[in-house]
């Protein structure tokens, strides 16, 4: 029962996990607004990953609720008022953990995949 559940949701969980990692990475260096985050993911992934409004904002709100990022309405000179997100201290720890987890995961997958091909 339990393992079937794990298999069934693994794919979605994987996407969700990686999406969090992407967002957290993007707001690590500087605060960014939602549209900018969506654009950057699309651009840097060469169009392979796309986040539209229905998936992007719920994700941002979830991360904010967990206290990993924090949004703030800011009006910059000559620009419209936008909500900028930046990484919190807690978010920074989570990001580090997720990065290493991802690294381990990829390494593990590579090992397994490499062994199979050898």
């Amino acid at each position, binding site marked *: 029962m339990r*393992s079937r559940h*794990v*298999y069934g949701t*693994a794919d979605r*969980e*994987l996407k969700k*996990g990686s999406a969090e990692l992407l967002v957290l990475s993007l707001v690590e260096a500087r605060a960014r*607004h*939602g*549209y900018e985050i*969506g654009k950057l993911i699309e651009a840097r992934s060469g169009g392979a990953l796309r986040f*539209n*409004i*229905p*998936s992007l*904002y*719920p994700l941002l*709100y*979830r991360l904010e*609720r*967990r*206290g*990993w990022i924090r949004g703030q*309405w800011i009006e910059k000179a000559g620009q*419209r*008022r*936008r*909500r900028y997100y930046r990484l919190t*201290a*807690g978010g920074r*720890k*989570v990001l580090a*953990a*997720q990065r290493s*987890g991802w690294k*381990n*995961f990829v*390494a*593990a997958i590579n*090992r*397994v995949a490499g062994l199979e091909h050898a």
Partner: protein
Amino acid sequence: MPDRASAGWRADLDAHLARLGVAPVRRAGIAAEVAQHLEDAGRTALDPGEAARLARALARVERRVPFDPPVLGQERQTLMPTIWQDLRYAVRAARLAPAYSAVVIATLALAIGANAAIFSVVDAVMLRPYYPGMDRIVTLSEATRQGDQMSIAWPTFQDWQARNRSFEQLGVYRNATVSLTGGDQPAERLVGAVASSGVFGATGIQPLLGRAFADADDAPGAPRVAILSERLWRRRFDADPGVLGRSIVLSNDAYVVVGVMPARMRFPSRLADVWMPIGPIAPTFPASRGAHPGLYGVARLRPGVTYAQAAADMDMLARAIEQEHPESNTDVAVRMTQYYDAIVSGIRPTLYLLLGAVGFVLLIGCANLANLTLARTERRQRDVAVRAALGADRRRIVQQLLAESLLLAAIGGGLGLLLATWTIRAFVASGPVVVPRIDLIGIDARVIAFAALLSILTGVVFGLVPAFRAASPDLLSSMKQSARGASSGVAARRLRGALVVAEVALALMLLVGAGLMIRSFARLMAVDTGFDPEGVVTMRLTVPPSKYQDLARWTAFHDELVRRVAAIPGVAAAGINSALPLEGGGSEAGVIVEGRPIVANKAEAPTLFQSASPGYFRAMGIRLLRGRYFTDTDTRSAAPVVIVDESLVTRLFPGEDPIGRRISFEFQGGGHGLANATPTWREIVGVVVHVRHYGIAAEPPYVQLYTPAGQLPIYYEQRRPGMALVARTSLSSDALAAAIRREVARLDADVPVYGVQTMTAYLAQNTEQPRLSVVLLGALGALALVLAIIGIYGVVSYSVTQRTQEIGVRMALGATRRDVLRMVVGQAGVLIGAGVAIGVAGSLAMGSVMQGLLFQVSPRDPMTMTAIAVLLTVVAVVASIVPARRATRVDPLVALRTE
């Protein structure tokens, strides 16, 4: 048109969020942000499909956490509705986690049940005041300055009464067993007392009906009146108030009932059913101060007089009497004891030990529950974090979590009380004789209050620590990490580890205590008592002194009785003796050897002396080592003989043959100077084994000797001892007693036979207290062990679940199952090792607590310590291997994907 489209999606989204209960400000914020995004993207509106997906996704994020009570904006509610809300929520939470709730409730029921049961005993025996101002009641007797207790001489008591300055009330009493006859009911034997009026004054208990004894009842020649116990009054007289003034027959004398004492009156013992005044028998007391006619004193201290002052006053009085009557009272002092102390001193150390032990069980239980609750709280920390983020203040969250643990504690406490009730009922029904006030033990309001207090305390203790951790904002971030499944927060892991260490340490200490008790008990059981209890039945007979004043008649009666009992079919051997093994007390004197000089006016050894008929040794199974037993020819007209025990031989005749040597312990004349007294010499004809006379464990330095019952020691010639009849038989004690009663009645109907018991039962009674300690402490130790196992299993199991991903990575990176098992068990092993080390140190430190309760076993017995430490370690490691093995079955891919 664009405006209308724009307005359309905004209105739809806003309505959707409003239905979810999202606050207006928040709704506006979300709409504004989405609108800005659209604008940046150069669009004007969300298309319907997008809007629907956004609404669905937001529903998952913005919705309140399902089992959260609404906390936002409700902080100013009054307290009561909040508590009600918390309770309802707590019930729901408990039902949502049935396994957790069941474990918590079961643990608490066991721990609180054990505590309530022990408390009810401690309360009845030690805490509850029994008589008003019980700490001011003292008991009195005379004693030699060498420390031998004696009853009070009648003239001496009168001096005390007239000359003491310390007592508000002073009474004197003598235990008396009487037979109640008359009416249409069969005769029955009653435990009672001859008591002066001061006895009632000192206890401070008012009669239920009629009156207590007054001064007039103490006057010599006063009429025979009697006071009945409430129990006897209800049982035999149907609680008839008209019993006052009625005449009853007690041991052939008519008494007029003048009062009924309530059940609270239990002096001299709880078995007392009838009290008779001292006046009518006062003229029979010897006028000599050297005669001690079985009287003992009880007194109530005058207000403002301390125990020490009273003791000093009585000591001065004793010294004055000593000067006035040197011929009888040289070296005679007063012994005064606090009554309360006398009742509980025997059982107190055991009760303290048990109280400590159940306290340990409770602490272990609490550690377990704290651990469980901590793990559960961490699993729920997201919700707590959300609530904190939504503005619920910390106090409110703590309160909520506390309500949950208190609810479980209350249920557990209630069940525990039920368990305690059953346990105590069974315990009281088993009728242990070593526990004073056994009939008062039960579950009453005080015990219930105690259990309630414990439940609240444990609820707070096991609920508060995790609650504060959960509500602590500093730790939120680390908990979020743990929620990601990376690894549990360091602080939480430390706390859990510390709890396991504490648990193991406490369990070890408790088990060491139980182990020591078991070892001590085994030693006790291995003691050679010197007699063979199998198939031995004993009983007491008291011949009326007036009728048997003539020694020849006294001897003839006993000889004939023994002859007839021995002739009963099924009786292998029968005899009488002035004392019984293990009975304690007894007649003691100094013994000297013929032909050796008396040094410093002192005897060579203190000795216990008894007077036995020839058949006694065979009946009791006391082995003959040399010489012979007594024979029927060892009579008054024959040469005085004596049988001694091996300890006397070792002490007085090391390396010599004692048979044929002459010794003496009977002296006449010479005042207190042994050198000038005339000894009666007796020839040693036999040597028997040493018999434990003062209890199995006690071994005072008395050597032992026996005279033939036909050659009573001079000390017994005037004041005959009550004899014990002993028979070795294949009959049941009841059948034998009936047969013997018939024989006795045929010889003399005035001689009562009582105190029938088998020697095996008597032996069991003598070892009852240590046996109880072993059983109870063993049970508590087992309980502690089980709780500790559950605790270790739980912690390891939880940590394995938490670290599934880490373990998966390790295994993906090449770790074998063996490596993983070694890692998990190794980490548990560190905690277990630390707990065992601390527990051993604690046991060593607390050794002195058990000192007085152990027999021939050191409280720091290395063998017990080692055995228990090994046992606990093995069991604990096994408990951690089970969940650890589960960790080794983790599928690396699955473990990683759950991330």
